[in-house]
């Protein structure tokens, strides 16, 4: 699977090694114990979570407030009765006149929803306006989100059966599906337009997304890569191991969703993951808040992006795609020692 990912994020390899060493060290010499710590009480801040996509439908923005750190098992304090709108601007940042009002769902507190026919457009900027809230220092919050261009980036995918995969899945995506050595690999056939591009990949099985959360998306970018890897034909993107919870069988429909996101949202997701995962004691820096795009010290993000999907039926008779001039079946390559 994630060969692409490793190459794209070589640093993660370094980090992974560091983590392993730290855990080794801790394993060898230390103990853990729950302790009582009195934490400072935090000022309430607005939490914004939502966005606008390209498919016509209901788009939701969820408003809540922060709680004291040890108070997370209480009810989530959603914010009601806010006045929420989204305004569209063109590339020159002129209002296009499209304005969507988001109304609170009467059955779901704090969930503000558009009409069911609303959609965002590539290259436009969407401004979220929230007013009539009484949280924190402000009563009015805004957030701007640029809707990145998304070309016809997915042509198709292929789900192929792999056996005896020696190394798999240390880094990301469906981490816990990668324990075994046999499974389905989803190959991507796509284009990666010129310039810096940032992507989210989500894997589907029989129409159900397997990793559609901030912490489990597969994140890729093309900034570190010299060659255009995403544009490679048949690059394996996701591996669904046969011995994992997500194990698929012949005849299942497997697929990928690709989302082209802004650089800022990509950064946000990375920071979110760092904060969510907790920092490593020996290597992490001072913890810091995830920087969102909402004004007035609010937490969270308002995003705008489009997506494409492609599916394939799992079929064991299919051969993995050969790319880059290699051949099948491969000879056993001699072990190569990396020169010092």
């Amino acid at each position, binding site marked *: 699977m994630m*060969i692409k990912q490793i*190459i794209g994020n*070589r640093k993660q390899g*370094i980090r992974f*090694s*560091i983590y392993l*060493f730290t855990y*080794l*060290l*801790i394993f*060898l010499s*230390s103990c*853990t*114990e*729950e*302790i009582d*710590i009195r*934490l*400072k*009480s935090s*000022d309430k*801040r607005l939490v914004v*979570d939502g966005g606008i996509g390209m498919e016509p439908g209901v788009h939701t923005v969820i408003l*809540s407030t*922060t*709680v*004291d*750190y*040890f108070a*997370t*098992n209480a009810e*989530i304090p959603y914010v009601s009765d806010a006045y929420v709108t989204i305004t569209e601007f063109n590339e020159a940042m002129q209002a296009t006149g499209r304005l969507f009002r988001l109304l609170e769902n009467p059955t779901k507190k704090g969930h503000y929803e558009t009409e069911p026919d609303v959609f965002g457009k590539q290259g436009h900027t969407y401004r979220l306006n929230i007013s009539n809230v009484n949280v924190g220092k402000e009563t009015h919050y805004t957030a701007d989100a640029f809707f990145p261009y998304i070309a016809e980036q997915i042509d198709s995918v292929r789900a192929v059966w*792999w*056996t*005896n*995969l*020696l*190394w*798999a899945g240390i880094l990301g995506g469906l981490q816990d599906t990668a324990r075994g050595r046999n499974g389905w690999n989803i190959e991507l056939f796509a284009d990666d337009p010129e310039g810096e591009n940032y992507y989210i990949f989500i894997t589907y099985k029989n129409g159900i997304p397997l990793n559609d959360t*901030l*912490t489990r998306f597969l994140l890729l970018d093309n900034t570190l890569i010299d060659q255009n890897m995403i544009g490679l034909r048949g690059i394996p993107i996701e591996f669904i191991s046969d011995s994992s919870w997500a194990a698929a069988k012949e005849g299942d429909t497997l697929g990928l969703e690709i989302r082209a996101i802004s650089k800022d949202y990509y950064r946000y997701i990375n920071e*979110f993951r760092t904060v969510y995962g*907790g920092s490593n*004691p*020996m*290597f992490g820096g*001072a*913890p*810091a*808040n*995830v920087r969102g795009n909402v004004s007035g010290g609010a937490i969270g993000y308002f995003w705008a992006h489009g997506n494409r999907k492609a599916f394939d039926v799992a079929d064991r008779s299919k051969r*993995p795609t050969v790319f880059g*001039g*290699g*051949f099948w079946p*491969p*000879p056993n*390559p001699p072990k190569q020692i990396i*020169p*010092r």
Partner: protein
Amino acid sequence: MIKRFFIFCFFAATGLFSTVFAQRNFTLSGTIKDQSNGEILIGASVLVRDGKGGITGTVTNVYGFYSISLPSGNYSLTFSFIGYESHEKTISLTQNITLSLELTPASTVLSEVVITEERGNQRITRNEMSAVRMNIQTIRQIPTLMGEVDVIKAIQLLPGVMATSEGGSGFSVRGGAPDQNLILLDEATVYNAAHALGFFSVFNNDAIKDVTIYKGDIPVQFGGRLSSVLDVRMNDGNTKRLEATGGIGILSSRLTVEGPIFKDKTSFLVAGRRTYFDLFLPLSNNAMARNVRLFFYDLNGKIVHRFSDKSRLYFSVYNGLDVFGTRLGEYMQFDYGNTTLTARWNYLFSPKLFSNLTAVFSKYDYTMGAEIGNMRFKWLAGLSDYGGKMDFTYFLDPKNTVRFGASSVYHVYRPGFSDFYIGGATGWFSDSVSVGQRMELPDNHALENAIYLGNDQTIDDRFSLKYGIRLSSFSNIGRDTVYYYDEDFNVIDIVGYPKGRFFHTHWGFEPRIGATYVINEATSIKGNYSRTVQYVQLAQTSTGGNPLDMWFPANPNIKPQKADMYALGLFRNFQDNKWETSLEFYYKDIFNCIDFKDHSDVIMNRQLYGEIRQGRGKAYGMEVMIKRPSGTLNGWVSYTLSRSERTISAINEGRTYLAPFDRTHNLSIVANYQFSERHSFSANWVFYTGNAVTFPSGAAFLGGNWIPVYTYRNDSRMPNYHRLDVSYTLKSRPNPNRRWSYDWNFGLFNAYGRKNPWVINFKQERGTDRKFAEMTYLFGVIPSVTFNFKF
């Protein structure tokens, strides 16, 4: 700055005038050594009485040399050094006299007779503050982790010096960062003084003679770091007879062999230490532990050759390495270590002019490699220094000692190179299309130069002054690629510089002034101002410390850090110098103080300079030390009350925040009780305020997860830290007819088993939304046994 320069000129002129009008003087000089093994004695005191009530004196320098100019006449001299019988001599000074002599170690340290009034008083009268010299005997008495005698752990018990993490070798001096300490081993910089991720330091105590830490009042010959200089000197090797010293402990074994090659001319020393923790791991019933490789070693070597009384040559070498790895299906390895080489030549141009020429080489590097399946990955990084120094001490007259010299160091920084390779792994790559990625950050080169001139001047019996200036420069040399940033740290330009081009130079002007006023024989007051400049720093965002040191130089993007330190001290001895006390206050102003922005990425980042923010720093505090240097019960109590803060506009919304090494209270009690000639008991207790850390204050529900919300950087504290260590030493029966001796040392580290958190993580209970704090602590009660021998 100009004003300061004029003040300096004024003092310099005063110094010169005093010589012009002086009467005819002669020089008394020589070297003081240990009679038993020929080791030179550093800091031995020479006291001169003129018979008319006038007393003057000096101390030996780091090469055991002293020189004092006196008007012709008759003098009675007393040579003394702690732990040695003092030696009296009367001379008639009618010409220059060379008087080298050897002091006999005191037969027993129990005898308080050897503690002479003169020696004890030296601390009061000496025109030096904020410096502590510790000899290795004192350090050996302190109980330690796993019985490993550790120079740095001993230093951490002094006022104003604190460990930056539990059990770690990193230390913070007067609120500074660990990379602001210049650690020198025989004049070569040791870039990473830690073994085993910091739990042990690289100094093998059998090879070390003397350790001095300058927390402030940094002498003009040192520079390049803001906070402190830790000057560690190796033994020269026994010039009288072949001798072996060693020890067997639960963690490591040591062996040192030293002796004369040509009697009284050439001596050598070879010392080794290796841990053998890893040898027991295969016995573990845990598969992971069985496959771990984990050890470190140190090798020290030295050769000293004496051409004549005037000329001596020293070669020192140090090499140490940590090996850390595992073979558990996959393979991983992580090695890191230092190498230093020093060649020094002492030459006495005249009894008044002592010179030392030094060539140094120093290297620190690490390799990290992994092979998991057919993914292979390797990362190399490090740095090397090639340098030369010239240092002169001119004993101008009884009232003036002038020190001047120059140094030049060529630095090569290798921020990293990683190789990444995947091939064959997945069954469909062939080698011809295997994916190999090589990421290399280019080397940086720099030349750091300095010249300095200083004078130590005695104005009268009570008042003495010290003033000096150090001029330094730091030039970046191509080949290099420099990213230039705008105010928001977006790259606006990338400029490549050709090989050998000096493309940027920073300058440093470092005045240092000090004064001592002796109120009476037992009391003095001292004041000091010093400016220090630091051109290289460590890219490290954590406080825990790790071996992945990446030093990066000042360049067009980063200004050198500068510190102005003001210190004032009151020194008083009690009961005929049996008790020494000091009270020091310091205030430090730091300019261009460095920190990393939120969510910074310092590993293998081409645009590392874009992650750095600079601002102001401030540190101030009070240090108290009460010491009983010898006697049946000896030891000290040190207490520090301090604060260290930073204000950097791009960090923490521009608000002032506490430096990670800020600790309000820091108390150490070190005691050694010698209840008979053979039995002694030592204990130390430390207490300090927990580190300033960033803990979450709130939580936000986002994307189906609770994530922590923070208020300000370092606005919380770890719990207070305290720990007691004890040890008991049993020595062999003293027998003058026997060459060998031994001792047993039994120790308990963390004797009452305090669980001091090393780190606190915040976690969420599985399956619920309940959050809780979990601490990781490293040590329970750790017993140790060490057997030391000498023959």
